[in-house]
């Protein structure tokens, strides 16, 4: 199976501290892959390189037929707005906006009309079981509700790739389970590719397969698409 998302020999350092030392990762279209590894192994750095948030010092990142690590800032931002959804540990919702407005935000940035963007936001909130909190601000929501709103925001542009960094790290077991059921359920239904960084094995068990990052390198050989039919 060919790779939809591929990182080749990624090298990244923060000052004199190396984070990635030649990391390779290949993910098939529609595949859900969990990246495991101890703290400081480079998991989040790898995810940031895959999403074009960070330019590696060396190596290449390919998304479909596009090499993204050499794109300029504007092109990478555009790519993230249209093709990549990002879900972080604490949701990172804008506290002054309602849940509905938070979900609509990526569409508004993409110059979609306000009414259309808010309608899409409502649709996604409903799909993820939190339609009733649309008018509330993040501070009024539980952690699980906030993360569902953040998930709706990551999915509202119907991205081909979702990158999730410890998406359940701030949630209790039951709320974490609900978020993972929703994330993987939507991804499998729509054929969305997901790369998921986690230290939680129960979260990783929702993925098709896992890879382990140790000292900035992926350990062992990974077969692309091995976990999906």
């Amino acid at each position: 199976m060919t790779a939809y998302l591929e990182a080749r020999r990624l090298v990244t350092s923060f000052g004199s501290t190396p984070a990635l030392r030649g990391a390779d990762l290949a993910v098939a279209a529609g595949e859900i892959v969990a990246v495991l590894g101890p703290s400081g192994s480079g998991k989040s750095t790898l995810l940031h390189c895959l999403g074009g948030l960070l330019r590696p010092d060396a190596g290449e990142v390919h998304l479909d037929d596009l090499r993204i690590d050499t794109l300029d800032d504007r092109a990478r931002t555009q790519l993230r707005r249209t093709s990549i959804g990002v879900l972080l540990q604490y949701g990172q919702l804008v506290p002054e906006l309602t849940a509905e407005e938070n979900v609509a935000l990526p569409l508004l940035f993409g110059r979609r009309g306000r009414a259309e963007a808010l309608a899409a936001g409502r649709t996604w909130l409903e799909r993820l079981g939190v339609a009733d909190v649309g008018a509330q601000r993040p501070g009024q929501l539980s952690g699980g509700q906030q993360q569902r709103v953040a998930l709706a925001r990551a999915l509202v542009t119907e991205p081909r790739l979702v990158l999730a960094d410890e998406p359940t790290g701030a949630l209790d077991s039951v709320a974490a389970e609900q978020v993972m059921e929703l994330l993987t359920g939507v991804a499998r239904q729509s054929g969305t590719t997901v790369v998921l960084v986690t230290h939680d094995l129960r979260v990783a068990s929702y993925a098709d397969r896992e890879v382990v990052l140790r000292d900035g390198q992926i350990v062992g050989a990974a077969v692309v698409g091995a976990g999906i039919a």
Partner: protein
Amino acid sequence: MSTPIAVLGLLQSGPRHGYDLKREHDARFPLAKPLAFSQVYSTLGRLERDGLVEVTEQQAGDGPDRTLFGITEAGRQHLRDWVVEPEPPAPHVANVLFTKLVVARLGGSDGSAYLDVQRTAHLSRMRELTEERRSGDTATALGADYALFHLEADVRWLETTLARLDTLDQGAQL
């Protein structure tokens, strides 16, 4: 799991034939090893001997399936006592995972290769359990959850131990 306790527990809601007990046991404890018919009847025999169950109906004909067993008051009291009694935490570490790590270390390995293959094996089973929890009934979901937490604990322990090995090596031999 204690088979006599499980059998007594199933009889709380009314008398059963041995066949029904086997079927209900396997449905209530779907991720446990299925009960053999012979085990059901030998267990019922011991429970009857101890006064915890009794024959409530004996239908005409041959074979043990003609016999209906019910729980006695002594059996109900036994269950009430058992349910509220705390289980002693395991006093000894006698797990094959622990033994493998020690043996790997004794052979000069740092144990990380073993951790990687064990994590892969555990995660493979965890994926199956996650799917079973999603698609199964309540009993299956409860059993899957229990197994998932324990498998996760195994790997977390392995990872923590390996992360500590450098420090441990300086003070004592593992």
